[in-house]
């Protein structure tokens, strides 16, 4: 399909539709979704200048297959607490009065939250949402009810980008969720613990570390750092995107820094002053054109009930300015030095990231919270080959874990929209989860925004941000999967030989969605 250019020929559309309808390994819902995408792509792309259209066409800039005619924001983070308190007129639901009603209420609401995958990416700060309803619910009952809820989520929201948050308070619901999540070892939901060294306590961090030792979840967010960037609330969704609560992100558009560096001829100063700003401008143009269509043509915020009932508001949406390929960009611009190891490569990476961060900080984007986008280190998609995700150190070249943290922590504060460096641990750590807690605590003290671990030997592994079960991938090859992301994971496995790699390498797989 073309972008920013001509429309597809009807015969091509028919061929694609036929492949979708007759494809052996697609579920019913996957067929419906792909047919919708196909229809959307028969519409022209929002108007772009020839330069931005060419950047999009060539892959210098990418909208990650969001579609040609945005009719819903990419990431929506409804204010579920507000919904539980006020009920929903549109859904004809009164505010719940007990635990079971609260669960049903949330289940109904999740079903009605739009997204790019049709499934909700954010399930809320589940412990604090449910805590008001647990009085009188015994520990055993809580465990049973959460187990059923967790099964419901995994079976009805078959999308690994779906994300639940817990913390920063240590409470019995958070503890029960960690336990149930580790016992069930499901792909869905993905889980983030918001951890505050000052208030959450080491006990909660250790409980999370025990879960990580079992199922490679949860991801851990440095709560004080994120709360400072989003003082009126945030959620961590999808592949570790940090976004405003009660809002979200209209779109995610990413700039390929390897491509950017390849197109440059000259010294570093001229790259920073001339070449890079042009590429940044093209990225912003795509972002703005997409938002303009969503807000003014599709009029999403005028007709969707979430906006009408105040569960989201347009002024709490931002846009994600994604970058990736920092490692290769530094290599190209230095003539071969290694990012993560060599000082000159690290310095150039820092200068480029700083430059982009300054542009993002100063560039007004209409219809965004504070009129600004957020910078995001985008974790790649399954079709990326030879370009490292986000600002990660290149696969196989990562220093020892503490040195690795120290190498990447200086720029973490710049990525308000999230950055997902992943740290591999040896399977022996399963007998010693305290060590996981130790590394996380040290990383936050040294300025890491968030941390994710991958431990080899789990069936549940992370393909950058989202989880897949290795056993599902083998099964998918034969008979198709219930879960959307399994196919994407399989593609990553094939492109990146995930199954042949050492723990460190598994952790650097690419993701089909941010």
């Amino acid at each position, binding site marked *: 399909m073309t972008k920013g250019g001509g429309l597809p020929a009807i015969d091509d559309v028919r061929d694609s539709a036929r492949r979708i309808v007759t494809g052996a390994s697609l579920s019913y819902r996957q067929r419906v979704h792909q047919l919708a995408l196909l229809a959307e792509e028969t519409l022209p792309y929002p108007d772009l200048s020839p330069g931005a259209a060419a950047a999009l066409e060539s892959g210098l800039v990418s909208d990650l297959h969001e579609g040609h005619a945005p009719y819903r924001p990419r990431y929506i983070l409804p204010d579920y607490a507000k919904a539980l308190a006020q009920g929903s007129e549109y859904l004809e639901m009164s505010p719940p009065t007990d635990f079971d009603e609260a669960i049903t209420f949330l289940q109904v609401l999740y079903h009605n939250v739009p997204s790019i995958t049709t499934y909700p990416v954010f399930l809320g700060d589940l412990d604090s949402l449910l805590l008001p309803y647990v009085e009188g619910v015994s520990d055993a009952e809580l465990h049973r009810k959460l187990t059923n809820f967790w099964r419901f989520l995994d079976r009805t929201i078959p999308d690994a980008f779906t994300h639940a948050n817990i913390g920063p308070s240590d409470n019995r619901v958070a503890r029960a969720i960690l336990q149930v999540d580790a016992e069930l070892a499901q792909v869905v939901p993905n889980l983030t613990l918001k951890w505050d060294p000052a208030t959450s306590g080491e006990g909660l961090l250790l409980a999370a570390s025990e879960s990580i030792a079992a199922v490679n979840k949860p991801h851990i967010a440095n709560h004080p750092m994120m709360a400072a960037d989003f003082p009126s609330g945030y959620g961590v969704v999808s592949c570790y995107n940090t976004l405003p609560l009660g809002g979200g992100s209209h779109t995610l558009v990413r700039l390929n820094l390897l491509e950017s560096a390849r197109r440059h001829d000259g010294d570093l100063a001229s790259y920073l002053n001339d070449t890079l700003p042009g590429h940044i401008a093209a990225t912003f143009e795509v972002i703005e054109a997409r938002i303009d269509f969503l807000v003014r043509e599709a009029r999403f915020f005028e007709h969707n009930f979430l906006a009408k009932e105040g569960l989201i508001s347009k002024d709490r949406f931002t846009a994600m300015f994604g970058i990736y390929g920092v490692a290769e960009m530094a290599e190209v611009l230095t003539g071969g030095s290694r990012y993560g190891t060599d000082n000159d490569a690290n310095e150039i990476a820092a200068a480029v990231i700083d430059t982009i961060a300054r542009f993002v900080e100063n560039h007004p984007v209409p219809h965004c919270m504070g009129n600004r986008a957020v910078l995001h280190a985008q974790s790649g998609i399954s079709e990326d080959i030879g370009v490292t995700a986000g600002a990660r150190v290149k696969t196989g070249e990562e220093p020892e874990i503490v040195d690795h943290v*120290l190498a990447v922590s200086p720029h973490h504060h710049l990525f308000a929209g999230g950055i997902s460096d992943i740290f591999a641990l*040896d*399977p*022996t750590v399963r*007998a*010693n989860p*305290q*060590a996981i807690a*130790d590394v996380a605590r040290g990383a936050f003290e*040294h300025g890491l925004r968030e941390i994710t671990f991958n431990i080899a030997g789990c069936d549940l592994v992370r393909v950058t941000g989202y989880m897949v079960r290795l056993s599902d991938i083998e099964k998918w090859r034969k008979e198709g999967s219930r879960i959307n992301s399994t196919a994407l994971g399989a593609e990553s496995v094939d492109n990146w030989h995930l199954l042949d790699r050492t723990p460190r390498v598994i952790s650097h797989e690419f993701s089909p969605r941010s």
Partner: protein
Amino acid sequence: MSSALVARTIGTSVVDGPGNRFVVFLQGCNFNCVNCHNPSTIRRMHRSTPEDIERGIMGIVDQLRTRAPFLSGVTVSGGEPTLHLEFLETLFETIKTDPALNRLSTFVDSNGSLDTAGWMRLIPWIDGVMLDLKAFTPVTHRMITGQTNARVLESIRFLSERERLAEIRLLVIEGLTDLDEELRHYARFVGRVNPAIRVKLMAYRHHGVRPQGLKWPETRPETISRVAAVLEREGLTNVAVPI
């Protein structure tokens, strides 16, 4: 970092005591274990000078300044670290009297050959000792390590009384240390000291052993399970098997 005294250091280890640990390997050992996995550290060095000690400690403390937030503590291993008693005492005292470092727990990984007067010097500065008791029967112990085990048993009793015994490790060799009679004696001794002490079972592997060690087979998983069951039946409550 490497010197005649400090063979090497590891900034991140998850297998040398509780949590993530900085590990220091010292040079020289008075045992001669068939299965030693650090054979290059067995060779004794010349007596370390005060300069060696100071330089070694400064190098370690420098690294700890950056790494402390990532750590539960520091483990000194070897070789046999207690052969360098003055170094150990000074290093741990430095850590425990430094406000930025005293949160770190201090552990020694030892063969247990130090006498009680030696342990007395370390007691004020250490949190735990992980000791090998490779066999209870003295003749078996000598076959594996080249030394008898009277000192080791005495160290276990002494450290347990002073709440410094973190772990005892039993090397499971089929036909040698997995015999019921041997295990019963082993468990009764440990049970009298403290039945709740963590006893970690180590599987015997051919990787790195000397030729005379090849006559003993590698430990099968079912042997580990059986040994754990025997020790538990004899009253030990904290038997850990390899993952």
